[in-house]
């Protein structure tokens, strides 16, 4: 349960909203119960008085109070339901935002190393699913549970007042059992299965993707049938586990409803005893069982949520692991620049590069880059080129050796375009840049014409992941972003991926000129992929 604490704290920041929403829920529920209970009371009263009338006995009945009460509850049930849905939907959407912003902030605090390899599409899809699971925490879990407990106590109190302490205690016992079965009992019975479902599904996803990636080889070997049969079996086993969870939820729900109804029956039976001793009146005798029947509605909301509680906890646990605070340093940091009279842009000596916990990909690497220098690094994929670039840029720490550098700007191997405007994407490189400067760098990478044709110009929306750009255009855009930065050291990893040779030939010299006086390290799979470089190192 501890895994929920950070998320509960986040949700509880909106305590006022939660309480108000809960009050509206309570009003809806009580209106519904009161409408029926009061109607039942009214019918019994009129039936008894009607008998007296029929017998010719003079009797008095107040029709005004119960009549207006019934009308009031009919309206208040409708109005409070509408307001409750509207208000709580607003709350849920606010919480949705809170959770995502908080999670983003925590992820941002951790450096690349802490995130490790958690950048793939699969991790992102899992992250989405986990965050979605937390969205339902308030409306599905916290609110109905609190409400069920509260209304139960209110009705038991009513039984105490109208009937007797003993009957109230018996009802409390039955309802507490129902409550326990619908919440904790169900959670305990589904926790293991429900908690694994997500992980099992992600495992299966991995297997399906493998199956599809190897489809040609498997087809050639005549093994697709066998292999897909295995996937089908795993998927079916997963469905069966889900069905098992569903069935348990169903049984707990029906037993909960049974107990709630049973409490109404017992209230009626015990009430008859009191009625025949003239301790309670007929109308009051009818009122309590009907009120108890009305509890079924709120109790019915519990099992569905608690059947998924195991999965919700597992999701919270995974998210907590994702955003574990950095152990030593607070995440990403700029390395201090080297001292001394003559300042190098970058000095590396006896550097070992690699990801922590794995063998180094590059060892005993030494280099010195002066301002204005052009260093090229060539290596095939897997030679540790990108790890070297990450290390230079300070994304990962060197495994051994020393490294000193000036502030740098870094074009990563992956092209990252945000779902935003051209302008917003470029301003990341230099928030102070003017529109004129933006057009200038776009000119440099031959994108100015492309966007000047668009009506929105710099405010052109680029779509999800830059989907409105071709691969080459996206690459040139992120290149322009890096060029906007004024940092004295520029690191470019595969600057021209997806850019055709002609364009590359035209823009490379212009970029070289633009970066005049600054140190540039460009890395690529071959010399043609680099900026014109005075000195080229080959990685083996």
């Amino acid at each position, binding site marked *: 349960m501890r895994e929920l604490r950070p998320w509960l704290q986040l949700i509880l920041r909106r305590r006022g909203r939660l309480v108000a929403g809960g009050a509206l829920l309570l009003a809806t529920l009580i209106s519904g119960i009161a409408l029926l209970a009061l109607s039942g009371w009214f019918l019994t009263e009129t039936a008894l008085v*009607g008998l007296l009338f029929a017998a010719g006995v003079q009797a008095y009945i107040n029709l005004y109070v119960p009549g207006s009460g019934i*009308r009031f509850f009919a309206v208040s049930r409708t109005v409070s339901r509408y307001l409750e849905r509207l208000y709580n939907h607003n709350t849920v959407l606010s919480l949705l935002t809170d959770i995502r912003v908080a999670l983003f902030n925590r992820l941002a605090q951790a450096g690349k190393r802490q995130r490790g390899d958690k950048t793939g599409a699969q991790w992102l899809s899992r992250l989405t699913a986990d965050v979605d699971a937390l969205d339902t925490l308030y409306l599905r879990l916290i609110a109905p549970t609190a409400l069920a407990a509260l209304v139960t106590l209110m009705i038991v109190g009513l039984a105490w007042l109208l009937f007797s302490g003993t009957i109230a205690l018996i009802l409390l016992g039955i309802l507490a059992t129902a409550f326990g079965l619908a919440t904790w009992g169900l959670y305990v019975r589904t926790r293991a299965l429900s908690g694994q479902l997500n992980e099992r599904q992600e495992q299966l996803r991995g297997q399906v993707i493998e199956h599809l990636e190897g489809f040609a080889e498997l087809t050639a070997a005549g093994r697709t049938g066998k292999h*897909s049969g295995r996937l089908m079996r795993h998927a079916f086993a997963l469905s069966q586990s889900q069905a098992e969870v569903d069935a348990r939820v169903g049984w707990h729900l029906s037993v909960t409803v049974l107990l709630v109804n049973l409490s109404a029956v017992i209230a009626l039976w015990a009430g008859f005893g009191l009625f025949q001793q003239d301790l309670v009146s007929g109308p009051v005798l009818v009122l309590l069982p009907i009120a108890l029947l009305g509890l079924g509605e709120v109790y019915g909301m519990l099992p569905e949520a608690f059947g998924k509680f195991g999965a919700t906890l597992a999701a919270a646990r995974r998210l907590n692991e994702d955003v574990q605070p950095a152990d030593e340093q607070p995440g990403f940091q700029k390395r201090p620049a080297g001292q001394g009279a003559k300042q190098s842009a970058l000095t590396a000596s006896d550097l070992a590069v690699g990801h922590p916990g794995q063998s180094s990909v590059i060892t005993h690497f030494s280099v010195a880059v002066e301002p204005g220098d052009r260093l090229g690094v060539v290596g095939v994929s897997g030679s540790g080129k990108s790890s070297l670039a990450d290390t230079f840029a300070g994304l990962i720490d060197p495994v051994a050796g020393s490294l000193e550098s000036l502030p740098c700007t870094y074009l990563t191997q992956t092209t990252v375009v945000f779902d935003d405007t051209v302008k917003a994407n470029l301003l990341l490189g230099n928030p102070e840049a003017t529109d004129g400067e933006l057009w200038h760098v776009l000119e440099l990478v031959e994108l100015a014409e492309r966007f000047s044709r668009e009506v929105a110009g710099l405010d052109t929306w680029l779509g999800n992941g830059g989907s409105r750009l071709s691969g080459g255009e996206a690459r040139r855009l992120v290149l322009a972003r890096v060029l906007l930065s004024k940092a004295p050291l520029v690191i470019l990893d595969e600057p021209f991926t997806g850019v055709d040779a002609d364009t590359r030939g035209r823009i490379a010299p212009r970029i070289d000129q633009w970066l005049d006086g600054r140190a540039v390290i460009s890395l690529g799979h071959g010399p043609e992929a680099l900026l014109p470089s005075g000195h080229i190192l080959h990685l083996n």
Partner: protein
Amino acid sequence: MAEPAQADIKGWLAGLARTSQRWINATVVAGTLAGLATIVQMVLLAWLVYQGVIAGEPVSALTPWFLVLVGMLVVRAVCQGLQTRFAARCSEQVRRHARRQLNDHWQAAGPVALSEASAASLAREWLDHVEALHGYFARFLPQMILATVIPLMILALVFWLDWLAGIFLLLSAPLIPLFMALVGMGAEKVNQQHFETISRLSGQFLDKVRGLTTLQLFGQTAQASDTLYQRSDQYRRITMKTLKVAFLSSAVLEFFSSVAIAVIAIYIGFGLLGYITFGPSDQLTLFSGLLILLLAPEFFQPLRTLSQHYHDRAAALGAGAEILARLQEPVSGAGNVQAQTKPTATADTIALSGVSLRYSDSPPVFDQLNMQVKRGEVIALTGPSGGGKSSLLHLLAGFIRPDAGTISVFGQSAGSSPFGWLGQKGFWIQGSWADNLRLTSPDASDIAIENALRRVGLAELLDSREQGINSRIGEDAQGLSGGQARRLSLARIFLADHELVLLDEPTAGLDATSEICVLEALHKLSEAGKTVIFSTHHQALLALANRVLIVSGAEVRNA
């Protein structure tokens, strides 16, 4: 992929429903019985109140009836429990069926057509979209029927008790179908809006998380967090505007049910007092009056449940659209009857006769192509990119079927017996080296596996692992380089010992070590008398071949 028509999606869902009609029926029967038990429960409750309060029966005389009532509660609970059990079973069957359909489609489409979609999106269809069908079959579909049957049963009973009260009930739910449409429209709008907002929100969030390293590099994470917050808040405000209206439809349902209860209660009350001088109200007793009151909420409950399950329908239609679009994708060469006729060539040659192939409107890749390869030959295919080398290999592999002509591979049709295939990307699964090789040769011995790995130059890597072939491939969290993955695929070919081996650009983009390993491996295969056909531009590979064929301009000729 073209978006299938709404009617087609509904037809497909109906087809799936037919496959597990038995379970749907069982669910509906259990639900109807639970509804009946609820009605009986209310009858008994009202009757007991009447007997106790009006008729003045002592408790002891009523106790047996109380026990019957408790029995009825148990029946209701059992039926409800069975209803969910059957519903879960139904959805289980439906999902299995839908997955099998997708599997069969993959099989029919073959590797080439399949590789046009990303593996991740195909996997999403197979897993998540099929999963999204669950609620529709387990909840919505049975509830559709129950929301008609149970209110009708209650209505009939109320009419029998007091037709005027029945009319009140009927008036409050003018016509059940109309009501359902009203609920449906509202619920659909709400769900659509809700899911759109969530997916936009998630999109914004994921967009920022995906580019987090870039944001950190530029020191812009705080600004990104602000943007995320503002965008999300903007979505929230827009959504709330729509929801104000959309929630009205459920408020209407709520209003009608509340008003119906209030009107009935007041009508019955006045009737019991004898204030109403017309209609059937002089027949009312506390029994019939209370029963009508108790049944009124049960009359509306199934409709409310249905409106709660409405999003299941929207989810199933959305997922169904994507699955169906995949299933409706044409399968290549399916119309070519000639290609399916039994090839006649001898068992010692691979023969193509009169083979034509073209992709949609582009010029033909091959036109009336004839070609023969003898058993044991090593053939290199070369030529400009886009000239048809890969297409020719795919034809020989049976991955695509020609538009005309026949292909015979050692007397059988292409692809009908196993062969070795090496694509441009190597392929490995999470698991041990042995698992990876047994994928295509399940009965291989440990020694054979180790030998195969040694023959492709993976010995060094293997020796560095403590558990040898039983160590996991990805245990250093790095997996395999492109070259290593391709050598692993080659090891599978060695292990399986196929007569025919087809390789598509086996050395493209490889590092020097891997290149040498692949060359040596191919040499070994040819020495072993295998028929080897590969496409390449690589000089050393061309030298390895007995024959070099140039594939270009819709024809194949000797170099």
